[in-house]
């Protein structure tokens, strides 16, 4: 006897299962699969506003990759995405690891600290962006008031107005917003380490540094993998924070321009450029998508191998 379905007719069973999965399947196909595939198709056509023109093959790709001024803008934005990714990966996630380790030791008040480190994470990027835009105001912002207050007038710079510091100011705001996320992913990873491993290392007389280096760090490798991939996807989708804090043009002088802003400007136009170009916009979308998928896939494979080796 079929243990699971003693009474059901085959047909009724099929209909029942179809009823269960169909709504989710239809919504996913309509609003995820079709748009993603369409983006690929759209990038191969010439567009006049909302109207699709002639098939142009890879022309849109050639323009955004090799023809000035588009190619220069693409390179500039891409470079900034790479800077953002590397900095976040190193600074924000290393801080997260340290904080997680501190919380893992469960010192006095760790429950409070766990709630506070995650508080900014639940806020909208719009709120965080505006908040830090006000705080980074050259004269009346909190940051420079504090710097002047402690006698560091020379450091009270126009952070968002200077093309040398603007991108770093945005990265700082991003780190403030999201450092709680890697912290709690790492914390969960550390809490899954079996106590035996830690005890064994203690018995062998491992100090704090060796404990982190040879026990904790290798054993949270799965957390590192997932943080790596999520950080990469997040960095190459960066849009809201620079949009709020630096504007659609990545001011000043394109020093905060990233692919997300450039893509949006190209697709929907802006005050200065005016025109919207769905063809080049789609080409950029496809390129960003390919970068994300390729790198995320390769790194997952590489890091999973590393997890095993460590």
């Amino acid at each position, binding site marked *: 006897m079929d243990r699971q379905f003693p009474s059901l007719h085959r047909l009724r069973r099929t209909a029942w299962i179809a009823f269960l999965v169909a709504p989710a399947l239809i919504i996913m196909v*309509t609003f995820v699969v079709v748009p993603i595939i369409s983006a690929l198709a759209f990038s191969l056509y010439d567009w006049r506003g909302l109207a699709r023109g002639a098939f142009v093959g890879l022309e849109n790709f050639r323009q955004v990759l090799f023809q000035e001024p588009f190619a220069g803008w693409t390179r500039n934005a891409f470079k900034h995405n790479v800077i953002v990714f590397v900095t976040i990966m190193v600074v924000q996630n290393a801080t997260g690891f340290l904080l997680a380790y501190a919380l893992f030791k469960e010192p006095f008040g760790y429950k409070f600290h766990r709630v506070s480190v995650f508080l900014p994470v639940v806020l909208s990027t719009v709120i965080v962006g505006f908040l830090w835009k006000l705080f980074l105001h050259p004269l009346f912002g909190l940051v420079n008031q504090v710097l002047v207050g402690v006698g560091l007038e020379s450091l009270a710079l126009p952070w968002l107005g200077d093309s040398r510091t603007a991108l770093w100011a945005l990265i700082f705001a991003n780190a403030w917003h999201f450092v709680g996320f890697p912290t709690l992913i790492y914390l969960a990873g550390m809490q899954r380490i079996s106590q035996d491993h830690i005890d064994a290392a203690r018995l062998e007389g491992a100090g704090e540094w060796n404990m982190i280096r040879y026990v904790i760090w290798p054993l949270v490798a799965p957390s590192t993998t997932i943080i790596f991939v999520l950080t990469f996807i997040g960095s190459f989708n960066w849009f809201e924070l620079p949009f709020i804090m630096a504007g659609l043009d990545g001011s000043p002088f394109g020093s905060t321009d990233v692919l997300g802003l450039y893509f949006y400007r190209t697709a929907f136009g802006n005050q200065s450029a005016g025109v919207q170009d769905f063809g080049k916009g789609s080409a950029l979308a496809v390129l960003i998508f390919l970068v994300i998928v390729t790198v995320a896939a390769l790194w997952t494979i590489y890091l999973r191998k590393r997890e095993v080796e460590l």
Partner: protein
Amino acid sequence: MTTATTLPTGAEARGAAPIKLQPFLLQVLLIANSVLMLYPILVMVFSAFKDTGQIYDSPFSVPDFTNLVNFGKIITQTNFVTYLVNSFIVTGSAILLILTFGSMAAYGLARYQFRGNTILFLFFLSGLMVPLKLAIIPLFIQFKNLGILDTRLSLILLYTAMGLPSTIFIMTGFIRTLPQELEDAARIDGASELRIMTSIMLPLTRPAMIIAAIHNAVPTWNDFFFPLVFIQTDARKTLPQGLTTFMGEFNTDWGALFAGLTLSALPIVVVYIVLSRQFIAGMTSGALK
């Protein structure tokens, strides 16, 4: 997902450590970080009770908490309340649809073996990492053709699609762990498949549903990108998008700006403080195996 209660504290585990420097340093690190996290939020709230002059002159002082002028401006001179209601409608509807369709699909995938089961599960799973922002142009055209551009419905449908993969992932894993005996007993009693699902199995999945709901409610509530593209009419804007509108209007009135930020942050911060454990579990759940 919950705190490990079995782990000894740092000091205990190390026994007779030569110096107690480590716990001290860790404590300093945590306190410094909490100050860095909370102080800006505190200043934001304080500034909401000050006028612009006070903010410029004494940014660190404790304000007069009975001065509600700035909040009055936000409530009466902007569409704040409309934006808030819209955010509730959009997030609420999306979560309802996500949980309904998500648990149905998860139940089908978890409790029945059929051809294509694994492929279907992997298909839903693949949606987890898709950056749907990049499909904004086709979505824009699609919504235009469907005649739902500039409606809350467009956002609800899109957020539902974005929330389904994680919900199916979380719920399938949970439903698989429910004992087969429950189902069999009900079947012997002659209960229909629908009844087994709705009255016996799904009520048991509440913890997973809460995780899935929070996992999707927070990004949906906070989203700015899709409203920015889809919604033009002011009366249909959600809170993050509406915030950009009135931040522009009050340009130099810093007191009102901080009041707007404070009011916008208030709902989610309050819920977070009450449900912080569920929030942390929910928001990190996609990233934990």
